[in-house]
């Protein structure tokens, strides 16, 4: 329905009845309002009047926006100025003072002389879309906050193991520039890892879990539990995989301490049993000596008692070493110098027992930062063990030797002690670092290797072994070269 405006300068020349689309004017699913140069509303369609009350003869800024004066940015004014169509986004208020987001399009209306006599405004209500847009924006922000603020490593990788996205926690620890392979970033590897939960998720679309050791930008090891989950497109194809990793380094350190304690208890029980056997035997023989007044028996028995008292005392020292909480000092230690001293010290005795000690290293192989006493104990443990392995070898054909090597290997320095003694089967090797273990009968407390392992770990290094039963063993300790504190 169109009515003539009751007032307005354009009234005479503007005749809405001439509009052929009169019916359309009322029925289009948008608000239409027509204003003159003074922003007075000349006409409004039915939809507009129903929602916003009758605006006719009011100023548009008062009717739609509740303002006392015209809006600073006004598309109607611009259309009056340049005769062109304009559009803008506005917020207007309905008769219940509820806001509506609208897109306004303005269009000039001319008289027969071609003069602009009014401007038509078409309002498209986008309140619902705007609301959805806001909600989307909101959830995107929330998602990003979550992504960035949760205290675990989150990344998204593609099929080529390239990082597409990484959260702040991840970026702070690993850098994580998009496009770089995940294995380069947090494993410092050149190739993909042999077993990869990410690849498994790409393959079967399920979540997978694994425990991994990552290396952060500072070279520090981080133990994590990784969970992967597929990310699918609308067709259900897996486009990428989400990886969420929890840092369990502290839990792991605690577990290690508990495991060490467990091993200590086992070791102590075993060692005490052996010492007890020796003491018992010694006392028995001493008693025989007293009974028979046999000086030789008394001496033999007493030596056994002394030897086993010595073993208890060594055991206690080792135990104290193992359980003591401390961090090693970080003094410069020349590995070559220490190794040379130990080899020189043990060489004569070993030679007498038929074992040759050989050294294969140069004096400038490197300096590490650490506790000199610990490093000395570590190397002398390894060399001592190697000599013992040769001595317990019953193979008379072999000429026994122990080779101590020092060499550099990708930012680390390796201490390698190789013997051609008894060697160990796989079972013995697997027990080596996991529980008390001594292959040396009476003379081993089973703590020597635990101590070596402890020293290596405390200095940021590792210890490993290769061995073939009957052929010999090689122990390798790798320590960071001049590690920064």
């Amino acid at each position, binding site marked *: 329905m169109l009515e003539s405006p009751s007032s307005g300068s354009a009234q005479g020349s503007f005749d809405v009845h001439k509009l052929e689309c009169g019916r359309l004017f009322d029925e289009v699913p948008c608000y239409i309002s027509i204003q003159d140069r003074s922003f007075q509303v000349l006409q409004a369609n039915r939809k507009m009047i129903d929602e916003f009350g009758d605006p006719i003869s009011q100023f548009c800024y008062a009717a739609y926006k509740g303002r006392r004066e015209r809006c600073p940015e006004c598309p109607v004014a611009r259309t009056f100025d340049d005769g062109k169509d304009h559009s803008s986004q506005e917020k207007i208020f309905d008769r219940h003072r509820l806001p509506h987001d609208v897109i306004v399009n303005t269009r000039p209306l001319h008289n027969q002389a071609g003069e602009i006599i009014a401007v038509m405004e078409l309002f498209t209500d986008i309140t619902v879309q705007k609301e959805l847009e806001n909600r989307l924006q909101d959830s995107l922000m929330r998602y990003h906050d979550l992504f960035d603020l949760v205290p675990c490593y989150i990344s998204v990788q593609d099929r080529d193991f390239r990082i597409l996205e990484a959260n702040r926690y991840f970026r702070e620890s690993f850098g994580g520039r998009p496009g770089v392979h995940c294995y380069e970033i947090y494993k410092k590897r050149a190739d993909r890892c042999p077993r990869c939960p990410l690849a498994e998720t790409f393959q079967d679309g399920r979540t997978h879990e694994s425990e991994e050791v990552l290396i952060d930008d500072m070279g520090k090891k981080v133990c994590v539990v990784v969970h992967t989950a597929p990310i699918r497109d609308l067709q259900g194809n897996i486009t990428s995989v989400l990886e969420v990793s929890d840092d369990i380094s502290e839990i792991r350190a605690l577990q290690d301490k508990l495991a060490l304690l467990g091993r200590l208890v086992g070791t102590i029980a075993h060692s005490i049993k052996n010492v007890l*056997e*020796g003491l018992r035997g010694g006392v028995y023989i001493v008693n025989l000596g007293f009974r028979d007044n046999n000086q030789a028996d008394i001496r*033999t028995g007493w030596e056994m008692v002394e030897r086993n008292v010595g073993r208890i005392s060594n055991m206690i020292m080792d135990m104290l070493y193992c359980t003591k909480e401390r961090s090693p000092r970080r003094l410069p230690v020349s590995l070559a110098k220490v190794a040379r001293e130990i080899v020189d010290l043990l060489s004569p005795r070993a030679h007498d027992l038929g074992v040759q000690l050989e050294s294969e290293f140069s004096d400038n192989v490197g300096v590490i930062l650490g506790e000199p006493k610990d490093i000395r104990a570590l190397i002398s443990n390894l060399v001592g063990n190697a000599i013992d392995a040769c001595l317990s070898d019953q193979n008379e054909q072999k000429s026994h030797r122990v080779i101590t090597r020092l060499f550099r290997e990708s930012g680390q320095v390796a201490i390698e002690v190789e013997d051609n003694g008894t060697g160990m089967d796989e079972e013995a090797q697997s027990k080596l670092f996991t529980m008390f273990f001594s292959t040396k009968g009476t003379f081993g407390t089973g703590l020597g290797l635990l101590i070596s392992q402890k020293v290596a770990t405390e200095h940021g290094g590792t210890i490993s072994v290769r061995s073939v039963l009957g052929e010999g063993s090689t122990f390798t300790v790798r320590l960071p070269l001049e590690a920064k504190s």
Partner: protein
Amino acid sequence: MTGNLHRGKKILVVDDEKDVLLYLAKLFEDNGYGVVCASGGNDALESVERERPDLITLDLSMPDKSGARFYREIKAKPELSHIPVVFVTGVTGFGGSSDDTERFYSNRRQVPPPDGFVAKPIDPDEMLSLVDRLI
């Protein structure tokens, strides 16, 4: 001294622990047995061929497994298989070496069981009465 009772009877003691060898040797000698010692399975095989002992005490938990091999070999030889063998085993409960004997059996059912067991730490009376009964 009860030495005369066992005159001429010879015991082979096999153990890699020097103190155990000394202890058992003294114990048996003091009770009138002749004693031969071996510190590993290879030594023991030579000794048993040479000395033909009347009884063997054997530590099964020697590191090179030569104890078990030694036992199998003598049980496989008709001229040696009759010699009674006493296993000297670790204490049950701690450490792990205790179940050496058990494992030895579960792996080799075709091998006859030993004639006796003595657990470490060795009780001299228990050892003597067992040996006495077996010889």
